């Protein structure tokens, strides 16, 4: 493999990692702060993609579709939280698994009934549908560069939010001591709903960004969900930094594994990575709680 190709595959790995980070960030927040295992995170990803595809059809604009679909998935997430998940925070993890598994079935079927069984289409914005020449002999799809940019931007924003704002302080405090936050006169219920909505919006955003590249279809969330869980666990539950490092790691390992290893082995590469990581660091790379 020559240097150009190597660099190209590195970019591909980074781009995949950044997409995974958008998914994993919301998952790890909800997991770390509310101690909730949310299997339906992939359904929110799917909802994001479907909503954006429909809105693009209505408005004819990619940007408008994103701008409207993000708050829409935020709202969907908040409704789900208020109606069902709120009752599950003090429950056993297994009860959460069962209930959110129920949500997956519900959302998959709902989408199939509303949008039909055929896959949906989401067009690339005209300005981004070409390849950019990064330097002579190396072209890269413009849209994928945008994904990398959006992912890094959102990552930075999240860092700032968690470490430098009052909301972030409450989130961090809520993760370690719920009663204390309550005693500060903060309505923990509202805080949780907001955090869940934020996670949902991030998942939705990941779905929307994936929309023009991928087929928008029922069940598109599940494979990504598994990968996102892998990222969360490798990174350490509750850690945004861990999620970012792990996401890029997974993206790179998957990409280079696919290129360098025979098909049968490369399918297992991520699982081997996770198993190895956890044998080495049983609480992930950056354990959030000691």
């Amino acid at each position, binding site marked *: 493999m020559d240097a150009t190709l190597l660099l190209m595959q590195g970019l591909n790995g980074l781009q995949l990692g950044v997409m995974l980070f958008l998914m994993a960030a919301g998952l790890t927040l909800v997991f770390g702060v509310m101690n909730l295992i949310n299997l339906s995170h992939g359904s929110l990803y799917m909802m994001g993609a479907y909503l954006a595809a429909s809105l693009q059809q209505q408005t004819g604009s990619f940007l408008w579709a994103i701008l409207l679909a993000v708050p829409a998935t935020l709202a969907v997430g908040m409704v789900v939280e208020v109606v*069902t998940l709120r009752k599950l925070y003090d429950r056993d993890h*297994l009860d959460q698994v069962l209930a959110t598994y129920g*949500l997956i079935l*519900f959302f*998959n079927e709902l989408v199939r009934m509303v949008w039909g069984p055929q896959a949906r289409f989401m067009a690339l914005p005209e300005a981004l549908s070409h390849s950019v020449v990064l330097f002579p002999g190396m072209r890269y799809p413009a849209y994928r560069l945008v994904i990398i940019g959006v992912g890094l931007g959102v990552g930075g924003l999240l860092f700032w939010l968690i470490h430098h704002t009052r909301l972030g302080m409450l989130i961090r405090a809520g993760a370690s001591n719920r009663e204390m936050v309550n005693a500060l006169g903060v309505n923990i219920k509202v805080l949780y709903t907001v955090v869940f909505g934020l996670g949902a919006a991030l998942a939705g955003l990941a779905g929307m960004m994936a929309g023009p590249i991928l087929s928008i279809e029922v069940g598109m969330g599940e494979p990504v969900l598994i990968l996102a869980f892998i990222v969360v*666990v490798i990174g350490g539950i509750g850690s945004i930094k861990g999620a970012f490092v792990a996401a890029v790691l997974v993206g790179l390992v998957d990409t280079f594994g696919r290129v360098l290893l025979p098909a049968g082995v490369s399918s297992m590469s991520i699982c081997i990575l996770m198993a190895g990581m*956890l044998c080495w660091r049983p609480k992930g790379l950056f354990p959030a709680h000691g």
Partner: protein
Amino acid sequence: MKRPLPILLFGLLLLVPLCGEVFYTRLFSRIMIHAIFAISLDLMLGYGGMVSFGHAAFFGAGAYTVGILSLHGVSSALIVWPAAVGVAALLALPIGALSLRTSGAYFIMITLAFAQIVYYFAFGLESCGGSDGMRLATRNTVGGWAGLAGHTVYYHVVWGCLLAVFLGCRRLVGSRFGFVIGGIRQNEARMGSLGYAPFGYKLTCFVIAASIAGLAGALIANEALYVSPSFLHWTQSGHVLVMVILGGMGTLLGPILGAMALLLTEEVLSSFTEHWMIVLGPSLIVVVLYARRGLISLLPGRREARADAS
């Protein structure tokens, strides 16, 4: 008699073949096989406190043992079924030893990772038809007798296996081993300081659970006369997890009820509408929200029977 409920249940199950419809005999064979599978998971989950999301690996290992041995002309159940149990146990030993380094959500994910590795291995197994899987020509025989091919006979064999697993597990959880493993679930440090090495007990529990799952796998391969990677898929692990939680974990009757409830509901709903999942999904949520300890808690006088009464 102190335990009328299991007797009633097993008695009723004996009635199923009497209705004379092959379909119900086979459906309930499948249900009982899944009940065995679910009990084995519950042994780890409800009693041992180990949440595995990769239990299908052992189920599939049992099924593939049947398939691979049949390719080599070995068809006696007396060899094949113990082999299936043994293969599952051998597979569980390293997986369990490595996975038990972690706990909680990390344990869930590492078991999933190992199961996926096994899944992809079976997926690429050309001699067993790769992703398509392979058809078995006949059921296993017993000392040259091919009677298991009859669905009613086979039903009774499965019934016997379920009863044996049920009684065996009841003895196990009532034994000293059962108390230690329960103690480890509730407070690992304390049991450690009492001189019980938690790792050894947990690994033993993991391996026993896996071998029972291997038996269930051998049984399902014989029931469907088909071996396919779908037995190993992570959704299969999720499915059996749902059965256990739905029925009520930490009990031995719960998983049986859970397997029955889930598979019957799927069967009945899916014959009414192709959109059956939109009914099943919310029903699961309702069960979680309003039957906190699974379906078994809805039965009268069952609350105290749960392993952790806390």
